[in-house]
C-alpha cells in the first residue's frame, strides 16, 4: 500500500484536529478513526463529545481512557420498555461505575446527560465535587436520588448553567434544596424541575431567578399556587421556555389581570408547558403569547374541547404540539387549518384504561392533520380505531414522516370497517415514507406487515412491536431486512427461536433487542450466546428462584434482552437476571 498521499505525516496534528472539529456526527468521527493509526490517535485525543447508547456496551474505564479530552457525555441505561414497568426495578443501569470513571479521567467534564439510569445521591455528590467547570446536568427518566443530592449540586457547581430534571422519580427529603445555590450564583440559563413533587419555597426561588439574568428556560412543578407563580414570573420576562405550575385558582379579577399582564410581558416566549389543571377562567390569559409559540405541551392540562380548540387555533406558528385526546377530531381539524408549520404532533390518551364514555378522537383527526400540515414529520397518536384506508391516506399525504408511532389502545384491533388486519395500512406507511426512522405498530397485524417492513424500511432505526404477527416468519422478515435497524423491542408476539438463530449476525449490528412474553426458549438463548461472544444475552425471570443452569433447554423465557458489547457480561446483575 502506498504510504501517504500526504497522509497523517504531512500536516501537524493541530491541523487535523481542526479539520476533524467540523465533523459533528459521531459516525463520521468513528469513520475517521479507522483510516490510519495517526488519524485514530489525533481523533481520539480531540473528541469532545461522547454518546454511549447502552451503558453496558463498553466499560467506563475503556471509554475514559480512549477519549481523554471529553467535555460532554451522554449515557443511556435501561431498555425503553422500562418506561412501562416491564423491566424489573433492580435490573441495573446504575450510574456509579460511569461517574467514578469520569471523575477520575475527565476532570474537565462540563456536561453530563443520563437517561434511564439509577443515580444515587452519592453519585450526585461525586459529580458536584469532581468537575470544576461543570455546567450542564440533565437527568431524564432516572431514579435513585433525592433532593438532598440536588442540594449538593446546587451548593458546589459554581458555573452550573443547566439543570434539567425530566420525568425522574425523586425522593423529596430536602425541602429547601434550592436555597443551597449560593448568593453569588448567577449563571443559571435553564432550570427544569417539573418532575419534583414537593412544594418550593417561592421567595428563595424568586431570589434565584432575579439574580440570574441569563435564565431562558424555567419549568416549575405543579405545586406552586397561581398567585405566587405570577409574582415569580414577573422577575423573568426574558424567558423563552416556560413550564407553569398549577393554572387554576378561585376566580379573582385582580389575579386574572395580573396573569394576563405577566403573559403579555413575555416578548420572547417560544415554548409553553405545564398548565396543570387549567381552568377556563385563567386559560384566556395565555392568548397573548400564542402567536409566538413554536412549542406547546398540554399533557397536564385537562382542558376540554371548546377551550382547547380556541387555544390551539391561536397558535399559528406552532411547530410542536403535545396534547390529550380531549382535543378530539374537531380540535385536530382546527389545528390542521391553523397550524401550518406543525412538525411534531403527540396525542395522549386521557383515559388509557378506557372505561369512561369514548372520546370522539378517531382516525379522522390524524388524517386531517396529515393533509393540512405539510411539514409534519413526527407523530405519536393514541386512539381506539383505525382503518387501512386512513393509513394509506396518511402515507400518501406525508411521505416525509420520519417518526410514526400509532397506538390503538385495544390489542388486536382490526380495521373497524373492513375487519381486516391493518397490514395494508402500515405497509403503505413504510413504502411511502422512505426516511422513516422510528415506527411503532399496533392493531391486528399478521406476518405480512413484517414482510413489507423488512423490505421497505431501509432507514428504520427503531421498531416497537406489540401483540402482532402469526409466527416466527414475522421476526425473520425484520431481522433479515431493515438494514439500519438499531433497536427492536417486542412484546406479546408469537416470535421464537428459529428467527433468532437464523439471524444471529444481525444482532451484532444492532444496539439491542428486547423480547418479552414471546415464544423464545432457553435453549435458543444458550445457542445464541455460544455463537456470539460479543452479545450479552440476558434472561430476565422474576418468577423462579432456581439458578439458570438447572433449567432445561425447552424452558420458556419470560423476558429477554440482547445487546452488543465489548465489555463482556456485566458484574452487577440482580437475582432476576442471568447472562447466558
Amino acid at each position, binding site marked *: 500500500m502506498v504510504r501517504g498521499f500526504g497522509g497523517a505525516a504531512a500536516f501537524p496534528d493541530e491541523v487535523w484536529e481542526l479539520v476533524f472539529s467540523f465533523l459533528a456526527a459521531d459516525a463520521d468521527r468513528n469513520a475517521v478513526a479507522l483510516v490510519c493509526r495517526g488519524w485514530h490517535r489525533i481523533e481520539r485525543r480531540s473528541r469532545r463529545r461522547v454518546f454511549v447508547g447502552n451503558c453496558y456496551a463498553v466499560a467506563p474505564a475503556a471509554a475514559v481512557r480512549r477519549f481523554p479530552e471529553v467535555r460532554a457525555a451522554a449515557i443511556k441505561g435501561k431498555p425503553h*420498555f422500562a*418506561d*412501562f*414497568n*416491564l423491566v424489573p*426495578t433492580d435490573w441495573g443501569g446504575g450510574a456509579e461505575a460511569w461517574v467514578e470513571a469520569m471523575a477520575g479521567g475527565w476532570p474537565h467534564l462540563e456536561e453530563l446527560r443520563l437517561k434511564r439510569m439509577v443515580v444515587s445521591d452519592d453519585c450526585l455528590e461525586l459529580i458536584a465535587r469532581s468537575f470544576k467547570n461543570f455546567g450542564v446536568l440533565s437527568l431524564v427518566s432516572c*431514579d435513585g436520588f433525592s433532593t438532598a443530592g440536588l442540594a449538593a449540586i446546587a451548593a458546589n457547581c459554581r458555573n452550573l448553567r443547566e439543570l434539567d430534571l425530566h*420525568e425522574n*422519580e425523586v425522593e423529596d427529603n430536602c425541602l429547601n434544596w434550592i436555597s443551597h445555590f449560593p448568593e453569588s450564583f448567577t449563571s443559571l440559563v435553564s432550570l427544569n424541575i417539573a418532575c419534583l413533587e414537593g412544594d418550593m419555597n417561592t421567595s428563595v426561588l424568586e431570589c434565584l431567578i432575579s439574580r440570574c439574568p441569563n435564565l431562558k428556560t424555567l419549568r416549575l412543578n405543579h405545586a406552586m399556587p397561581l398567585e405566587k407563580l405570577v409574582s415569580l414570573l414577573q422577575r423573568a420576562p426574558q424567558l423563552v421556555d416556560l413550564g407553569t405550575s398549577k393554572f387554576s385558582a378561585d376566580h379573582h379579577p385582580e389575579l386574572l389581570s395580573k396573569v394576563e399582564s405577566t403573559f403579555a410581558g413575555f416578548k420572547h416566549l417560544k415554548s409553553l408547558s405545564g398548565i396543570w389543571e387549567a381552568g377556563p377562567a385563567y386559560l384566556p390569559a395565555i392568548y397573548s403569547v400564542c402567536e409566538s409559540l413554536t412549542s406547546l405541551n398540554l399533557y397536564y392540562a*385537562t382542558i376540554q374541547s371548546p377551550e382547547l380548540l380556541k387555544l390551539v387555533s391561536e397558535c399559528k406558528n406552532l411547530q410542536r404540539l403535545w396534547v390529550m385526546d380531549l382535543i378530539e377530531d374537531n380540535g385536530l381539524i382546527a389545528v390542521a387549518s391553523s397550524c401550518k408549520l406543525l412538525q411534531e404532533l403527540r396525542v*395522549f*390518551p*386521557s*383515559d*388509557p*384504561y*378506557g*372505561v*369512561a*364514555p369514548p372520546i370522539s378522537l378517531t382516525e379522522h383527526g390524524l388524517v386531517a392533520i396529515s393533509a393540512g400540515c405539510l411539514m409534519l414529520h413526527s407523530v405519536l397518536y*393514541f386512539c381506539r380505531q383505525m382503518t387501512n384506508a386512513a393509513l394509506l391516506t396518511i402515507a400518501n399525504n406525508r411521505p416525509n414522516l420520519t417518526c410514526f408511532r400509532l*397506538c390503538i*389502545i*385495544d*390489542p*388486536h*384491533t382490526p380495521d373497524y370497517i373492513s375487519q381486516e388486519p391493518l397490514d395494508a395500512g402500515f405497509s403503505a406507511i413504510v413504502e411511502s415514507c422512505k426516511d422513516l426512522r422510528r415506527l411503532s405498530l399496533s392493531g391486528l397485524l399478521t406476518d405480512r406487515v413484517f414482510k413489507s417492513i423488512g423490505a421497505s424500511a431501509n432507514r428504520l432505526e427503531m421498531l*416497537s412491536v*406489540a*401483540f402482532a*404477527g*402469526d409466527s416466527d416468519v414475522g421476526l425473520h422478515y425484520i431481522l433479515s431486512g431493515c438494514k439500519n435497524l438499531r433497536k427492536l423491542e417486542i*412484546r*406479546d*408476539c*408469537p416470535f421464537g427461536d428459529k428467527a433468532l438463530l437464523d439471524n444471529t449476525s444481525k444482532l451484532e449490528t444492532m444496539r439491542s433487542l428486547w423480547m418479552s*412474553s*414471546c*415464544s423464545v426458549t432457553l435453549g435458543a438463548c444458550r445457542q445464541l450466546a455460544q455463537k456470539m461472544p460479543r452479545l450479552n444475552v440476558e434472561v430476565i425471570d422474576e*418468577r423462579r428462584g432456581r439458578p439458570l443452569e438447572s433449567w432445561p433447554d425447552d424452558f*420458556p423465557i*419470560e423476558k429477554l434482552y440482547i445487546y452488543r458489547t465489548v465489555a463482556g457480561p456485566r458484574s452487577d446483575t440482580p437475582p432476576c437476571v442471568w447472562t447466558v
Partner: protein
Amino acid sequence: MELELGLALPGSDLIAELGLSSEKSTGMCRKRGFDNMFYRATSPPLFVQKDGDDGDGDDDDGHFNHLQELNLGSRVLVGWPPVRVSRRKSEEGGKRRVNCVKVNMEGVAIGRKVDLSLHDSYQALFLTLSHMFPKKQHDAEESDAAYHKVTYEDEDGDWMLVGDVPWEAFIQSVKRLKILN
C-alpha cells in the same frame, strides 16, 4: 329480602363457580366470567384473551389468584397501553394514602368499603365492585356484557355517573359510591 350472613365474602360463590381459586384456571372459564362483568358493552377489556390465542406465553402459567390481583389494583396486562405511570404512585408499600369510600347497592342492606388507593383505573374498580356485589344469575341473561350502573357522590354533593371524568380527577372528588339496580 333475606340476609345471608356467612363468613365468606358475597362474591365467593362466584369465584368458586369460575374456578378461580388457587388452581390454574382454564382460559374458557375466565373468558365467560369476565365478559359478564364489564360495564362496557363493546369489546372486552384488555386482559381477556381474544379468540385465537396467539400462544404468546402471556397466559398466566403459574398460579392465578384473582382476588389477590384485584386487591393490589394491578391489571393483568402490564405496561399496556404504553403510557408512563409514575412508579412511586403505583408501588405497593409506597407512600400511598388510604382512600376508603363506602359502597352501597340499591336494595342491599349491607354496604361495603372500597380502598380507591389500591386501584389505578376504572377497570380495576369495576372488577372489585363486581366481586363485592356480583350480578344475579337472571340478570346475566338480559344484558350480556354490562354490569350495573355505578354512581358516585362528588365533593359538591352531586351524584354523577362513574366513568365520566379521568380517573385521577375521580379519586380526588369521590365521596361515596352507589350501585344502581
